[in-house]
């Protein structure tokens, strides 16, 4: 998030797109509710009539995968009506004249034709956001899990740049991170393009710094993403170490994923339960769980917070840092003689420009949001207040394109996937929690009541749903949360493996799968 969570209570206008916040980030959503109670206006764009949509002043029920068209249409109206912030654009951005020209072609009528939302509603939403002082944008995976995930984000940045809603209290562009420490995983350099602290592996000076720190030559080229690595299993990738991920259930195109992991010569899985992924491993190593280890999580507002050990792990389970270090030492690697998590964190801080101002002791307070460039720096609750990291803000000249697969006679229904409040990811944890199991015991396919009737289904009965990659059997739930022609399910239940169906395409830059769009056929059984 560019702005702190506390800013969520301060916008005049809130624009939520591709975020089911009341289910996926419920506590953050309470702050939006406070803002609305105070008089803030809410715009919601989402194919599904989710809880946020019910709370909205303007609800835009866009067709799945049509976000760029909506956002270009809104930019057109803001440009046409002069609602942009000329002072901000002149002082902080470059290329805005060309951008205002670029959006001239994308009329609300054009956007309506693609999104299925009436042009008048697109106009109203654009005028409301464009007039806001300040306006804040919130999004989640409904924006990024598309073949055009990058263009979706760029289109949102364009709106914030043209209206000057960056670096301001109650404004910003705010992606909500899905997992407790997915931000920390990126911060710590567990990505193929950056070392710790987002230092590019392709920068020669940075490469030299890490060759010295790690005591060996390092590649000057980027690595490959997990998506590419899974594609190359058995061809050029022959061993994997997977820590705390149930790849088989969480990743798209399950058959492909299982085949890939089975074709490895060596698979080591570190986890707290024997997951579907662990079942395929040569070695499974038992890890200490949450509440059994000391360390840090970094949250969605870039706040570094201490997690503490409260109970002993069961049996012989050990902390991940110990397990990884022991494998490394047995391979003869140097620099893994750690006595606890403390020196690991301190080493990370010394090598990371954005954590440079803290160490284990200072992080105790939980008050720091990165970047913290030096000791004594207070941290950065709000990004871009005076300047952007790379100088001036750049507009992106985005265009709409269709999803990787579109509906046709064979697969005439849009499937979109997501989360539910009561379950977390593949239910490795929440599936073993008694009360949660009571609240949500099985997966259902959400179908509009008129589609239930038209397709010969029965509310509470069973359906077979197929895509070009597989078939699953799932119980039907008639609900007006789904629009006509679009159905929804989560991927939480391994016994209803929705990700056997997904995997139609990937964003060419991030290689994130288009998990939000998958044409399917639904028949009664």
């Amino acid at each position, binding site marked *: 998030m560019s702005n702190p969570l506390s800013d969520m209570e301060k916008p005049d206008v809130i624009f939520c797109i591709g975020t089911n916040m009341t289910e996926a980030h*419920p506590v953050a959503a309470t702050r939006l509710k406070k803002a609305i109670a105070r008089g803030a206006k809410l715009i919601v764009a989402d194919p599904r009539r989710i809880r946020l949509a019910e709370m909205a002043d303007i609800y835009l029920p866009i067709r799945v995968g049509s976000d760029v068209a909506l956002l270009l249409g809104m930019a057109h109206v803001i440009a046409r009506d002069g609602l942009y912030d000329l002072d901000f654009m002149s002082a902080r951005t470059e290329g805005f004249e060309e951008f205002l020209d670029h959006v001239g072609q994308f009329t609300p009528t054009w956007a309506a034709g693609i999104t299925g939302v009436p042009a008048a509603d697109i106009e109203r939403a654009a005028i409301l956001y464009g007039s806001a002082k300040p306006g804040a944008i919130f999004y989640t995976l409904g924006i990024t899990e598309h073949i055009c995930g990058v263009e979706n984000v760029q289109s949102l940045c364009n709106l914030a740049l043209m209206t000057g809603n960056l670096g301001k209290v109650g404004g910003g562009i705010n992606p909500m991170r899905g997992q407790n420490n997915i931000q920390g995983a990126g911060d710590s350099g567990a*990505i*193929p393009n950056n070392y710790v602290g987002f230092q590019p592996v392709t920068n020669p000076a940075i490469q030299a710094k890490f060759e010295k720190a790690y005591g060996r030559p*390092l590649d000057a080229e980027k690595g490959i993403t997990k998506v590419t*690595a899974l594609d190359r299993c058995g061809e050029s990738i022959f061993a994997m170490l997977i820590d705390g991920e149930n790849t088989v259930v969480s990743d798209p195109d399950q058959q492909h994923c299982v085949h890939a992991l089975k074709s490895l010569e060596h698979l080591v899985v570190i986890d707290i*339960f024997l997951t579907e992924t662990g079942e395929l*491993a040569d070695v499974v190593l038992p890890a200490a769980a949450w509440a059994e280890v000391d360390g840090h999580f970094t949250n969605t507002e870039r706040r570094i917070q201490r997690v503490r050990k409260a109970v*002993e792990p069961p049996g012989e389970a050990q902390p991940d840092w110990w397990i990884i270090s022991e494998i490394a030492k047995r*391979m003869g690697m140097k620099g893994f003689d750690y006595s606890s998590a403390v020196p690991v964190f301190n080493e990370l801080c010394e090598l990371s420009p954005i954590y440079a101002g803290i160490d284990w002791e200072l992080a105790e307070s939980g008050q720091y949001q990165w970047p913290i460039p030096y000791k004594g720096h207070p941290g950065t609750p709000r990004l871009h207040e005076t300047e952007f990291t790379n100088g001036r803000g750049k507009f992106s000249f985005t265009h709409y394109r269709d999803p990787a697969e579109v509906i046709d006679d064979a697969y005439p229904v849009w499937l979109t996937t997501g989360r539910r409040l009561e379950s977390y990811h593949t239910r490795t944890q929440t599936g073993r929690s*008694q009360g949660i199991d009571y609240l949500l015991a099985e997966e259902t396919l959400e179908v509009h009541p008129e589609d239930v009737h038209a397709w010969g289904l029965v509310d509470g009965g069973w359906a077979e749903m197929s895509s070009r990659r597989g078939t699953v059997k799932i119980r039907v739930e008639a609900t007006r949360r789904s629009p006509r022609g679009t159905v929804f399910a989560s991927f939480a239940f391994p016994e209803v493996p929705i990700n056997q169906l997904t995997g139609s395409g990937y964003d060419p830059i991030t290689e994130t799968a288009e998990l939000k769009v998958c044409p399917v056929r639904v028949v009664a059984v």
Partner: protein
Amino acid sequence: MNPNFSHPPITKTRTICGYCGVGCSLDLLVRDNRIIGVQPAMDGPANEGALCVKGQFAYDYVHHPERLTHPLVRGADGQLHQATWDEALDRAAAGFTQVAAKHGRHAVYGVASGRTPTEADYLMQKFIRVGFGSHYIDNCSRA
């Protein structure tokens, strides 16, 4: 004191919720090495006293009987068998060394977790970079 009314003490430990990315602060109530309850932290900067249904109630998986308590190693029979840490770690290390020797250092890949603490993620990337000199490391943020 009547021994029937004496209970082991309850300790309170401040930590951060392990579910979504909001990062709510909470206190774990522990007795006899078991979590018996969760209290939202009124002074938590992200949550200011609020918790959702998962953060408030879904902690008992930690003590679930299916937790892995020993390393497992696949035997000649194709099944996973209980092993000592020494056996399992040696087998894990030898497998990576052999694959790198046979197929080159770009044949080994690491997947870090979005659930583990940052310290685990940092060491996952260090394992790949120090061990193989490559950037063949990723985490679960793409799915």
